């Protein structure tokens, strides 16, 4: 039986779809920010693998085919962005200012915390790309000599946090302008947050998509400068 798990092409895909679907159904019944279909699927897939002693590698041999669609799906984010071209043109200054400051704020706060916790240089540069999209983050962490697996983990966790709490955070801290919400979400929690931003509205989604690309590219430059500061 165990051998079957390790060679099945559809097992990993199926349990991922199944738990995500179950989460979607439950979300319609339970209206709570923590009742998030994606978080639900992650938790239950992990529990399932643990319970049946299935290795992540065996699961991912099948589930990786889901991840293959990530690049084409990200490319499609150009569609909401294009639909909101006028919004972008009208608010160009605010958008550019917001995204640039977000990159500097990320770097400064990671530096401050790294000093506070007395992290070594490798751990510090591991955290620098935590808010940007995974593929760029991996590149930055590799180049600066960080622990790539932990960078990926920190990126995924930042994204999940953004996806779950973005709406609450915007409400509590009085961020009401759709453009400002989108920039805030995209800059702090990349594509995973953008999924939530798209649910909030098309302006939010478009600005969040733009932030993924720009904040990602700016971070490549900024991180190499900040890496020398610890």
């Amino acid at each position, binding site marked *: 039986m165990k051998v079957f798990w390790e060679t099945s092409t559809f097992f990993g895909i199926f349990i991922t779809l199944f738990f995500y679907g179950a989460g979607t159904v439950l979300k319609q019944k339970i209206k709570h920010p923590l009742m998030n279909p994606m978080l639900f699927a992650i938790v239950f897939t992990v529990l399932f693998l643990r319970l049946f002693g299935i290795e992540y590698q065996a699961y991912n041999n099948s589930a990786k085919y889901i991840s293959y669609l990530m690049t084409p799906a990200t490319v499609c984010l150009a569609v909401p962005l294009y639909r909101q071209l006028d919004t972008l043109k009208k608010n160009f200054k605010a958008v550019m200012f917001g995204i640039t400051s977000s990159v500097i704020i990320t770097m400064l706060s990671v530096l401050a915390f790294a000093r506070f916790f007395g992290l070594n240089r490798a*751990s510090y540069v591991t955290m620098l790309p935590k808010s940007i*999209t995974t593929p760029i983050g991996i590149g930055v962490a590799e180049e600066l000599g960080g622990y790539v697996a932990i960078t990926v983990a920190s990126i995924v966790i930042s994204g999940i946090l953004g996806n779950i709490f973005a709406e609450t955070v915007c409400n509590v801290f009085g961020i009401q302008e759709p453009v400002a919400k989108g920039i805030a979400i995209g800059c702090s929690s990349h594509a995973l947050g953008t999924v939530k931003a798209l649910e909030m509205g098309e302006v939010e989604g478009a600005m969040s998509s733009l932030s993924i690309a720009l904040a990602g590219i700016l971070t490549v430059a900024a991180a190499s400068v900040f890496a020398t500061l610890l």
Partner: protein
Amino acid sequence: MKLFKQFTIIIFLSFLGEVLHTLIPFPIPASIYGIMLLFFLLERNVLRIDDIREVSDFLIFIMPLLFIPSAVGLIDVWDELRASLTAYVTIIIAVTLIVMVATGRLTQWVLQNQKEKET
């Protein structure tokens, strides 16, 4: 046939993004080049949204699902994370919150300043 054409266009753009990623020596992923290409083609009217509408709506709709396998991969780095767990967890949570709030407020501040000037 329509969906087939739409899917082919999107995969072709992803492929072009990959080609650019290989040719240009920066750690910028294929997907970011792909966004730029698609945006440029739409803006130049080479492509219309109708050419990719249904498939792009579908791919964006299922996006949360696409993150699940890599998030489940957290179980493999758990031991490494545990070494400096408090520091990592604090940084991840605090920085995400600080950046979200500060960026949102700053952007909103510039937007509102602009509006006041206009009126």
